[in-house]
């Protein structure tokens, strides 16, 4: 149940685009038609599904304070967490390259449709963001990391699919000239994000302790704290 909770949460409530704006650059650049949007979205799911668990393993067994204790008692005091950025990005860049080569070798058809998007993904913020959130959330097992990777990938996919469909239609509308293209896309995304905010109250069954921990974690976060109070006042009104 906890995994399902995490899965739903990472798709809807903590949607990469609408809650954290991660991967906006490619989201805006590649959302002109549904077809390309689907290609990029599928590639993001694929890469997140692989890199989040790999980075989880690296973080747990190499980087965290005391993570190296499996090498021997002498290593237990080492804390390599300052290296996490460079390790994560190296893993992501090399995984993307590897995935590209494997896909090219074994599935030329898939490569044909994903091909040009894969290199773009190395610099998609949502991939590195997934790894960094994974580190911040301190998951307890690899299954949680896999669920989180899949969930946030699917959330990103949904977001880009929706905006691409809207943009295809909006080409026929009379948008004020200075708002055409980028401007209206921003505003539509904002409105969609307001829609996605309605998922915020959803809490599936879960461990009570975890909820308390989460609340404490969130109140550390300036933006989210403000957001929560704002939502509460909005509801009260």
């Amino acid at each position, binding site marked *: 149940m906890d995994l399902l909770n995490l899965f739903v949460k990472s798709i809807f409530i903590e949607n990469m685009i609408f809650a954290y*704006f991660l991967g906006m650059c490619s989201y805006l650049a590649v959302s002109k038609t549904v077809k390309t949007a689907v290609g990029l979205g599928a590639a993001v799911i694929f890469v997140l599904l692989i890199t989040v668990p790999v980075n989880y393993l690296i973080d747990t067994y190499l980087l965290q304070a005391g993570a190296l204790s499996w090498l021997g008692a002498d290593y237990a005091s080492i804390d390599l967490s300052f290296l*996490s950025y460079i390790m994560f*990005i190296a893993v992501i860049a090399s995984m993307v390259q590897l995935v590209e080569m494997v896909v090219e070798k074994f599935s030329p058809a898939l490569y044909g449709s994903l091909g040009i998007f894969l290199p773009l993904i190395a610099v998609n913020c949502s991939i590195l963001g997934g790894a960094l959130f994974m580190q*911040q959330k301190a998951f307890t097992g690899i299954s949680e990391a896999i669920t989180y990777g899949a969930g946030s990938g699917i959330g990103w996919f949904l977001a880009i699919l929706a905006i691409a469909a809207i943009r295809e239609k909006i080409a026929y509308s009379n948008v004020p*000239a*200075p708002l055409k293209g980028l401007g209206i896309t921003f505003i539509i995304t904002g409105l969609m994000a307001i829609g996605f905010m309605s998922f915020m109250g959803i809490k599936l069954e879960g461990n009570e302790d975890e909820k308390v921990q989460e609340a404490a974690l969130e109140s550390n976060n*300036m*933006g989210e704290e403000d957001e929560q109070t704002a939502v509460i006042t909005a509801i009260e009104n």
Partner: protein
Amino acid sequence: MSQEIKDTNEAKKKKDELILFLTKTEERESLLSKANRKLLSDPLDDNNPITVQVLGICSALAITVQLKPAIVMSVAVVFVMAMGNVVISLLRNLVPNRIRIIVQLVVVASLVIVVDQVLKAYLYDVSKQLSIFIGLIITNCIIMGRLEAFALGNGPWKSFLDGIGNAAGYGLILIIVAFFRELLGSGKLFGFEVLGHKGLTLEESTGLYALGYENNGFFLLSPMALIVVGVVIWYQRSRNRKLIEEN
């Protein structure tokens, strides 16, 4: 014997070439010629990284609830971009084309680690507020975009100016958005209550709040960041009509 002389000669020649390669781009131009000044001023308006090139939006939106983190973020990006552009521009003829993206990412990641550690040491509360967004400077598309588009083809001084200019254009939008969000959302600027103090009742309030003004809490939520940027784009394009898109 002659082989040795030839070797030293070749080494010397290589060294000369290297020196020439490091200095030649700046030979003909003064340091702040018109073209170079354009590199600095263009990204502020006509070629703004956020509103025109559509780069680096991810971090721009998430950290603009208050002015202080927005300014810290802009300074961090200025540093990373200027240094990254210079380093990549110096390396541009030594790095094989196939692995250039990994090299760029490693250079940028090392610079970001420096920024992150400095922030943790001297501005711990801001570093907490920015949370993962400092790390995300690594994949900030402005940085990769400018490295690819500019630093790989230009000398170090020009790349430095380009880095400063683009990061400043990015910071400008960040600060504009953060200004409106903090002012309208919480009635503060840099944490100071500029619109007066809001008490529990009307009598206890001062300034605008005494007249019955209310903060618009909506501006603190993430969707408003997108809409504010949309409005900024609207304003910029209606003033500068050559930026208007076809569709």
